[in-house]
């Protein structure tokens, strides 16, 4: 009894001693922003943004900039947030708006003009409309992945194309996250729209008739249903990324592979916000995001490929994460114009 009450007292003391308010972190406040020389730069981004601390610190030392990162929500949340606060932005630059969401904030004038010189290989990712405001930083492809071990064991040839997924050979083997609830799910829907045009609803009918399982998020599909997700999944075909095979490597071989004819490309952009308190600082940060150091860190820190061809990717990536040469694509303007229509048609198909 004595032991427990001592424990509780110790806990209480520990807790009361370190509440946020009692904490000693010098929290920069909004009123600090906009100081001269370097000054503070606020980067607004989504939850997946992540860069090694060491990199950030050395950038801050060299440039004299105090980089504050405000991350919240997913890419959709970020885009909605930028549009809502366009008259009074919450920061100086934004990172993480991708090609499926780029059109709306560009139309609303969220971004100010800034177009730095791009590193080799990055020009191909620039937007057709909006290249003057949004700078490509990283690229990843959403591709159908297969569990090659499972197919070897069963003696079945793995599927290759989107058409194959509707083939009765692969009945009840495919799982995908929903387009209405997940960004890779949306990318997969866009891939089918790019492939089949106006005929996509009939392709989806075939998919569903062939036992395709639609779940909420990527993590449900991969960890809940996919046979290589570490759990008790039963389906060897899943919608994931081109880089995913690099994370299932064991004894020098990957147990999964991405189907390169099923990929939809997602490019993430950075841009200076119009009305930024420190536009000069924001431009410097974008230059830094394009630098070799940051570009080389992207695969391990954020699970995406660099846009720059000048840097090397990690060994596992070079060997197992193969990028498609000609991914499927739909223009940002088309996506913006039809997203609602497509999603409601898709929802009707899936929830029937």
């Amino acid at each position, binding site marked *: 009894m004595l032991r427990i009450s001592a424990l509780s007292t110790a806990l209480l003391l520990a807790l009361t001693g370190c509440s946020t308010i009692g904490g000693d972190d010098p929290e920069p406040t909004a009123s600090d922003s906009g100081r001269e020389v370097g000054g503070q730069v606020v980067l607004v981004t989504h939850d997946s943004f*992540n860069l090694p601390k060491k990199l950030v610190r050395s950038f801050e030392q060299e440039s004299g900039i105090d980089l504050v990162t405000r991350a919240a929500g997913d890419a959709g949340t970020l885009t909605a947030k930028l549009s809502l606060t366009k008259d009074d932005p919450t920061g100086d630059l934004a990172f993480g708006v991708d090609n499926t969401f780029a059109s709306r904030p560009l139309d609303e004038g969220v971004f100010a003009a800034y177009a730095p010189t791009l590193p080799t290989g990055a020009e191909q990712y620039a937007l057709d409309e909006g290249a003057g405001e949004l700078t490509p930083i990283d690229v990843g492809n959403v591709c159908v992945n297969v569990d090659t071990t499972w197919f070897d064991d069963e003696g079945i040839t793995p599927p290759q194309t989107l058409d194959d997924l509707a083939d009765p050979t692969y009945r009840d083997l495919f799982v995908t996250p929903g387009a209405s609830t997940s960004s890779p799910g949306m990318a997969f829907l866009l891939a089918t729209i790019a492939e089949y045009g106006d005929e996509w609803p009939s392709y989806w009918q075939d998919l569903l008739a062939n036992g395709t399982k639609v779940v909420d998020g990527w993590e449900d599909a991969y960890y809940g249903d996919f046979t290589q997700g570490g759990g008790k999944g039963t389906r060897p075909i899943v919608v994931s990324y081109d880089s995913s095979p690099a994370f299932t490597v064991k004894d020098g071989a990957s147990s999964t592979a991405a189907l390169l004819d099923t990929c939809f490309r997602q490019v993430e952009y950075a841009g200076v916000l119009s009305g930024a308190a420190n536009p000069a600082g924001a431009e410097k940060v974008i230059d830094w995001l394009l630098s070799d150091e940051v570009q080389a860190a992207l695969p391990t820190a954020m699970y995406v490929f660099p846009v720059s061809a000048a840097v090397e990717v990690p060994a596992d990536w070079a060997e197992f994460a193969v990028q498609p040469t000609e991914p499927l694509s739909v223009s940002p303007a088309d996506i913006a114009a039809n997203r609602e229509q497509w999603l409601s048609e898709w929802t009707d198909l899936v929830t029937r």
Partner: protein
Amino acid sequence: MRRWLTLALLAAGPVLVVGVFFVLPVSGMVSRGFFADGAFDPGGVLEVLTRPRVARVAWFTVWSAAVATAVAVVLGLPAAFVLHRLALPGRRIVRAALLVPFVLPTVVVGVAFRLLLGEGGPLGFLGLDGTPVAIVAGLVFFNVAVVVRAVGAAWESLDTRPAEAAAALGAAPAQVWWTVTLPALRPAIVGAASVVFLFCATAFGIVLTLGGVHYATIETEIYLLTTTLFDLQAAAALSVLQIVVVVVLLGLAARLRSTPDATAGRTTARPRRVRSGDLPAIAVTVLVLVAVAAPIATLVVGSFRADDAWSLANYRALTGVGSNQALLAPVTDALVTSLRTAVDATWMALLMGLSVAVLVTRRSQTRTERRARGLLDGFFMLPLGVSAVTLGFGFLITLDQPPVDLRSSPLLVPIAQALVALPLVVRTLVPVLAGVDDRQRQAAASLGASPFRAMLTVDLPAAWKPLLAASGFAFAASLGEFGATSFLARDEHPTVPVVIFRLIGHPGELNYGMALAASVVLATATAVVMLAVERLRVPSVGAF
């Protein structure tokens, strides 16, 4: 006049906080929808409500939440009795453990449920994956602790003498329960049920995960409309619909809750020995425990697996930044952030909750006064029933002007969490304070005690246990809060649920293992804090 002044003074703090951090942001966001394209267009919003999909979504929300609430109450009552009134060994530990689901991140629980119910899981033969049954089971899993704790706390402070008197006069146990105990517990039960209903009706992740994409609730629909489609008009329409549903529900609950007589005793009833008649209740409790433990067990087992063998690798990885630098800071740092934030959220929620509880339970002299107190009571429940998405975006567009330029303040997270915890605190305290006979306070006053002194000697002894229960609750709610936190959290200092979400969102065995291990650490931390809170005693005030 002085009564009204006291009332206003007590109400001022909480009303101001809820006004600035809830009413202002929500109305700001909703009005964006009403002013589509710069012109006031209420017709457009009303038109949204006539869409057949909206009716379907609203109906599913109401019935799934209602069923889940009913199941949680039916299972929670026997468990509250067994764990709070019977002298069973280890009941404190079980009570603390029951709060664990409350803090587990929905993403992780969702995956755990699907590993159980999915095609390859041990319960896969039931074919429940992706059905409404799975959704209801998930909602009950998260919320049964609310019933056990809130009703249990009231049950402990219940005066046992009326029940004993009834029994001595020859009433059968069922009769005593029906005529004496149940009416006395009714305010607590209705209060807990309304909180559970609001939690269920605004549940987000669990509905999506367990229902697949086949089922949408008002909450998931608002998220889709706001972030993916940016259809603010439709989102505003649904937010208004949500508020209307919540207000109707709160009105109903207030009617059902009205207290019959003073029933709270000054002392905590001693747990009594187990009799044979308690067996059914114990059986239900065991059932609840098994049902709650099963998904947690899959998590714990998973967290100790690495490379197809038993291992502590996932836990060791928590103190580093991960082999893939998936994290900016070790999970241990995030745990410190979580605990710090929870301390702040808890004291804020307790401070506000206590004033609100005192405010709404004081005897009213006129009908208007009673009505004013009733309205205030409902007002503070509102934050629980309104979309976190609407609130979160509302923060961004309304709190950007001095004097409340708080968009980037580190206090925003604990404040948001305190708003979520506030109704839990209020609903736990109100039934007990309302049960204190006002004549005791009058007696204290006539003997010369100041109002403060009277509160200390009359109210505090009765409210002490529930106050502890409420603080534990608030703490747990804050530790596990994800929706508002992920919206507001800043990258340099993420909380544990935010970190877990990031880990489980990436491929790789280690990431998955670390997410499970971090969930177990969060759950353990919660259980330890709960146990410590239950151990707290102030011996002098309890004894007369």
